[in-house]
């Protein structure tokens, strides 16, 4: 084990190398914790203080068992925050601590510079603690069961946000909290003595105000809510579901947290690839001593090894590939049109733009655009990528293809919306009965119906009227409706009209 002093010295050294390499990071803090503390923090999504909820306990139970049975252990955990916090596990070997520190500087730089993170709250540790204390106050006021089961509902829909709304302005009609207020026309006359009446409340002014009010009422009675399909279901529920103020507050907090985490779902491959690229760079060039080579190699191969799809590995090798291509000028029309295998292999224009390019990539791309732009045929072949599919006859997954187009397509489809189904609110007054209608934008993969049913039944709890979702199942358009007791699936095609 390394003493705190040693760790501090190493941190300074590594930070120096990171600066020299051009990484641009938030002030970096490391906390030294034991495995139990690390698991605790990990169960709270990396934060020291979160609101109380049983899912955190479940995660903790899972992590602890995994650790005790030696199945898994968390090496690094780092939080997008200014200053940036990361955790080092006391029990780790020296070489691991160094590696984790190197790795963390990569993440830190990525958090600070990647454009998709630019709208995140950089004081999220404080914010999370605020959320926690507010929710705890509600627990004291309304009881744990009440608050926890409402949180269950919120978490059920927490991923249903509109990540792009952070960067564009959406036209939305926000809540008119007093749905009833439009019914009663207020009196626009000020109180006045009879002989002052015509001065204080001139007739034209009163009429004008009445007219304006009626217009406003008309506008708020727009025939259909939302006007456009609304991806931010959380926002929609906050503004249009019949909620108490404390429930609205909790929903808002869960939504804030979802938007905070969203860029991490959007950039998993890039973020890990970037951090792995830099730990490998620093470790092999400066940090490691001779006696640590084997351990490093072992650990590093653990990180980028494995049979399945490994975001660390794909990310790392793609960044290296980009660097190499831009160093040698293997891009652009001329290269793309070159048909000779020999020529392409030997292609070298000594451009030396590799470093510059990867810094640009880490700034403006996310996983989808990253794969879309930089995954090449050669890369798939070199790294033996394949598509697997479920084989009904064999009752297991089998390799389906090694064709570049199919691999890319599959990757992009599972990265789109961070692998979550696209769900929007279509109508909040479905069939004219105030029912809520959602739509799953079908792109070839059906929903898990059991989970969909559970989600609808949770939504019913807040909407308080039947909730439906349109989707496609076995190539047929369907709608699943939950009416408070049971969920029924209706075939849309056969009952249309």
């Amino acid at each position: 084990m390394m003493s705190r002093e040693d760790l501090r010295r190493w941190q300074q050294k590594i930070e120096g190398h990171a600066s020299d390499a051009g990484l641009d990071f938030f002030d970096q803090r490391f906390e030294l914790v034991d495995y139990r503390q690390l698991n605790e923090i990990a169960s709270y999504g990396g934060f020291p203080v979160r609101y109380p909820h049983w899912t955190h306990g479940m995660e903790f139970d899972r992590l602890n068992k995994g650790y005790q049975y030696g199945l898994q252990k968390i090496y690094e955990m780092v939080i997008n925050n200014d200053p940036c916090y990361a955790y080092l596990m006391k029990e780790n070997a020296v070489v691991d601590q160094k590696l984790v520190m190197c790795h963390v500087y990569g993440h830190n730089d990525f958090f600070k510079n990647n454009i998709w993170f630019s709208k995140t709250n950089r004081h999220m540790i404080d914010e999370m603690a605020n959320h926690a204390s507010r929710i705890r106050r509600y627990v004291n006021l309304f009881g744990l069961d009440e608050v926890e089961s409402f949180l269950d509902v919120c978490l059920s829909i927490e991923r249903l946000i509109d990540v792009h709304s952070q960067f564009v302005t959406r036209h939305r009609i926000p809540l008119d909290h007093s749905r009833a207020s439009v019914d009663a026309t207020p009196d626009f006359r000020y109180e006045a003595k009879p002989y002052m009446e015509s001065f204080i409340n001139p007739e034209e002014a009163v009429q004008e105000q009445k007219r304006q009010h009626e217009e406003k009422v008309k506008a708020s009675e727009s025939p259909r809510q939302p006007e456009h399909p609304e991806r931010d279901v959380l926002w929609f529920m906050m503004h249009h579901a019949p909620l108490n103020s404390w429930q609205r507050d909790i929903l808002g907090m869960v939504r804030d947290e979802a938007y905070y985490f969203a860029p991490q779902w959007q950039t998993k491959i890039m973020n890990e690839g970037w951090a792995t690229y830099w730990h490998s760079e620093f470790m092999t060039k400066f940090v490691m001593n001779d006696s640590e080579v084997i351990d490093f190699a072992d650990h590093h191969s653990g990180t980028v090894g494995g049979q399945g799809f490994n975001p660390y590995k794909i990310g790392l090798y793609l960044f290296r590939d980009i660097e190499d291509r831009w160093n040698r000028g293997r891009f652009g029309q001329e290269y793309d049109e070159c048909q000779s295998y020999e020529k392409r292999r030997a292609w070298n224009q000594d451009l030396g733009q590799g470093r510059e390019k990867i810094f640009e990539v880490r700034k403006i791309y996310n996983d989808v655009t990253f794969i879309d732009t930089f995954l090449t045929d050669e890369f798939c072949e070199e790294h033996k990528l394949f598509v697997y599919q479920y084989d009904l006859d064999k009752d297991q997954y089998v390799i389906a293809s090694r064709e570049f187009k199919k691999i890319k397509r599959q990757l992009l489809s599972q990265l789109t919306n961070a692998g979550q189904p696209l769900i929007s609110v279509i109508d909040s007054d479905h069939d004219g009965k105030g029912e809520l209608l959602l739509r799953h934008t079908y792109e070839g993969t059906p929903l898990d119906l059991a989970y969909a049913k559970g989600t609808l039944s949770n939504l019913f709890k807040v909407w308080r009227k039947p909730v439906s979702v349109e989707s496609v199942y076995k190539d047929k358009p369907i709608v699943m409706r939950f009416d408070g007791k049971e969920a029924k699936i209706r075939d849309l095609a056969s009952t249309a009209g």
Partner: protein
Amino acid sequence: MQISRIDRDLGRFRDIVRGKIKENLRKYISHGEMVGRQGKDLVSIPVPSIDVPHFKFGAKEQGGVGMGEGEDGQPVDAGEEGDGQGEAGDAAGDHILEVEVTLEELAALMGEELELPRIEPRGRRSVESYRDKYSGISNVGPPGLRHFKRTYREALKRQLVTGTYDERDPVIIPIKRDMRFKSWTRTEEPASNAVVLYMMDVSGSMGDEQKEIVRIEAFWIDTWLRSQYKNLEFHFIIHDAVAREVDRHTFFHTRESGGTKISSAYRLCAELLEENYPVAEWNVYPFHFSDGDNWGGGDTDICLDLLQNQLLPRVNQFCYGQVTSTYGSGQFKRDLDGRFEDEEAMVTSQIDGKSDIPDSIKDFLSKGR
């Protein structure tokens, strides 16, 4: 850092798991699987995955991208993501939870679910054992039990009051009256003994299915009685036309082809009780399982007499479980019910299939005797 709150969340999670187990307990009870999952003190129970429902893709439809060697059509181990450094909290578990509960807890859950009363032990409720527990502080005691912290605290208090404490030279010297010693209190623990005698008809008409039912039912009865009695002894008697005592394994795995004389088992049972278990000191629970067929020739009358004169006076409760089989006539239960209608110590139960096991257990154990 303030993170001790996880324990509360963990507690909430465990409550939910407990709730799930209870919800499904009747299913577990009538399922033989649990019996095989028993370790020394723990039972491992598969609980359907507990998760917050959300919109997600059907797993099998999705497919994915992997890396490595292999021809088209070759099976891959999906789900094996290189998770060596998994980031926190993004891998939701689709797995089935294996939850380990202690047998004691399981008994408590069963007690709640089937609304079983605690058993009121019979006979001498004499105090039979003591336990010493260090729980207090006393002014006198042997040096070996000296409580250093308390002693020095007393000394410090005294020195502060008398003004002999010098903060520049903080020396604390306990004198005799500062001395504090750990002291213990003696708690009485009423210990009650119980003996369980399982008897089973292993004649040809009792098939594997019937025996499986008996095995499952016996597991749960054991679990419950263990939670009620500290000292529990078991005897296993199998019979066809003759009875003999065997060990637990043989009990559940023997098949004979002969006819059935139930009286042979009851006689052996009575002898065992006579020799080893004085009524005053033991709570006695004979359980007899058969398909209700008994030889003619007056054997049933012998059984009824044995019960009346020798067994019922000795036992807390005599339990007869009749497992329905294709061959059994089921007459024996009718005979018992007819003779002992008003006898509280006699409980009979009809078990048509596995799903009847919970109710049958309830029949046997809900009297709290």
